[in-house]
């Protein structure tokens, strides 16, 4: 009984931490006027939501674009980060420390330090103001997460596991597909979740490289918020946290519940 009650209390506290900050946002999104010191808005309205959900306003398009950029960034990061993490995790080679340091650098350095040089470079390459340019820029903070998480996953994977599959008749591709991929999948999902959310919440890089032409949700949110449109900002903010929560719910089982798969067959 006590354990149950404790668990309930912990659940409530967690829900409180996660949900309470969202309450004012939700209220703002349906308020017509809400002035200090009123505890609740004086008048209600669905105008903000109507605007946010109106195809003509561009909010939904921005939601789609943000999703597309985050997904593309995650996919590219996985394509680079899985082989790179495999090399870092499984093999020892000369200069490994330097490679790791270089990989970590973007995660340590603030984006602002990179942004000016990058802008100049992308300008010459004609990548400024394009979605492709923004995706490439997002890879800078995303790749370290992907690569380092995958390196940790691979370092716990027995390299002989694939060799074993080969001697049992599997081609290199089938050995990866049938043996390595299932073993690294929980780790890959975790890394992808990080990658998606890091890209999703990028503001500075999107602004600098997209030059205002690539309007992702954080940019839109900021512009409404600084324009004093708290109602629309509230609605967008709620839309903004939606995918993160969804992705978390969808992958939570893979990441934690089936955590056993992460440790089975991997070296202790």
């Amino acid at each position: 009984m006590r354990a149950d009650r404790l668990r309930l209390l912990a659940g409530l506290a967690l829900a409180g931490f996660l949900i309470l900050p969202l309450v004012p946002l939700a209220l703002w999104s349906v308020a017509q006027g809400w002035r200090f010191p009123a505890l609740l808005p004086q008048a209600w309205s669905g105008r903000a939501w109507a605007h946010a959900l109106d195809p003509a306003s561009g909010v939904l398009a921005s939601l789609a674009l943000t999703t597309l950029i985050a997904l593309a960034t995650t996919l590219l990061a996985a394509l680079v980060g899985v082989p790179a993490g495999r090399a870092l995790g499984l093999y020892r080679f000369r200069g490994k420390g330097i490679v790791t340091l270089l990989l970590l650098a973007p995660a340590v350095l603030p984006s602002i330090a990179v942004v000016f040089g990058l802008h100049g470079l992308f300008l010459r390459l004609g990548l400024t103001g394009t979605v492709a340019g923004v995706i490439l820029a997002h890879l800078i903070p995303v790749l370290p997460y992907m690569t380092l998480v995958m390196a940790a996953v691979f370092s716990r994977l027995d390299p002989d596991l694939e060799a074993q599959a080969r001697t049992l008749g599997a081609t290199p591709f089938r050995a990866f597909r049938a043996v390595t991929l299932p073993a690294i999948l929980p780790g890959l999902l975790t890394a992808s979740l990080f990658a998606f959310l890091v890209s999703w919440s990028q503001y500075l890089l999107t602004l600098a490289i997209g030059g205002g032409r690539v309007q992702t949700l954080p940019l839109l949110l900021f512009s409404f918020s600084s324009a004093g449109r708290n109602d629309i900002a509230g609605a967008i903010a709620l839309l903004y946290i939606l995918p993160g929560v969804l992705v978390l719910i969808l992958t939570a089982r893979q990441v934690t519940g089936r955590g056993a798969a992460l440790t089975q067959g991997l070296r202790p």
Partner: protein
Amino acid sequence: MTRLTLAGLAKTYARSGPATLHGLDLTVESGSLTALLGPSGSGKTTTMKLIAGLIAPDAGDIRLDDRSIRDLPPERRGVAMVFQNPLLFPHLTVAGNVGFGLRMRGLPPDRISAEVAAMLARVRLSDLADRRPAQLSGGQAQRVALARALVLRPAVLLLDEPLSSLDATLRDEMRGLIRDLQRETGITTLVVTHDQAEAVALADRIALLLDGRLAQHGPPEALYSRPASEAVARFFGGVNFLPGSVREGRFDCALGALELAFAAAEGPGLLTIRPEAIRLGPGPNQRGAEVRAATFLGTQTRIDLTVQGVALEALVAPDAGRALSPGSRVPISLPPAALWVVPRGRAATGGE
């Protein structure tokens, strides 16, 4: 039934990694159970990985009967390898693991399940077919790994230290299972081990690898009692070595002329006698010895002797050793059939 031939197989690693091989020649007879024996760092696992195709040789050839498999990828060699660590695929059940290779061959599902069921019954694991590897004991996991390789009926089966991770009881059971299955299937099998007792108990033939070279290849008794070199004798627990020379069927050394039972080449040589072959009491080649120490070892007693200024070590039954105290004098006999002469000063194989 397939004969495995290694011809001049060589592998050198760029950096000080695993052991290197210097032109290994070895023929594993069709249907035999051969142990590839050697101390750690002698190149055993390297040899296995070369045969399995997991690494490429610098020189030499690997043949199954008369067909070279040197340039084939691992999955097309018909060579199945069981690693030291069972390496079961964690996301598959026991049955899924055993059926893995058959699925890679693209067999129809009903045939796969029939073959897997038969194989699991053979290794007495039918009850565990639906278990996950994490739920298995070490011995069970090792049996699944063996079944997973055997179900493919490979031309050659490679086992890398299959018993080293098991405790004594399971080791006996697993050794029996390997012997039985090998005899039933007749699959040419090469077992890597560093333990000479294990090799003697398990294999029909032993190939002893020292420093990346084949030191001797033959039936276990031959390596044990008729070693080809001092290094082989030392690896098999030889401790008594006497320099001297062979003359007219006798061996002249610090102990005088000793009778030999085996024909040995005339000229200088090194006499060796196994410690357990030395007899206490009168007999042929009798000498007077002084006991320096007697150490009780459980199943045997080790006696350190000095015979005419030469130190010898004998292993005798515990009862026989009990009466001996340091300083006492006893007659000993060196039976001619237990005396063996190896070439002296051949530097090719250094041993440990």
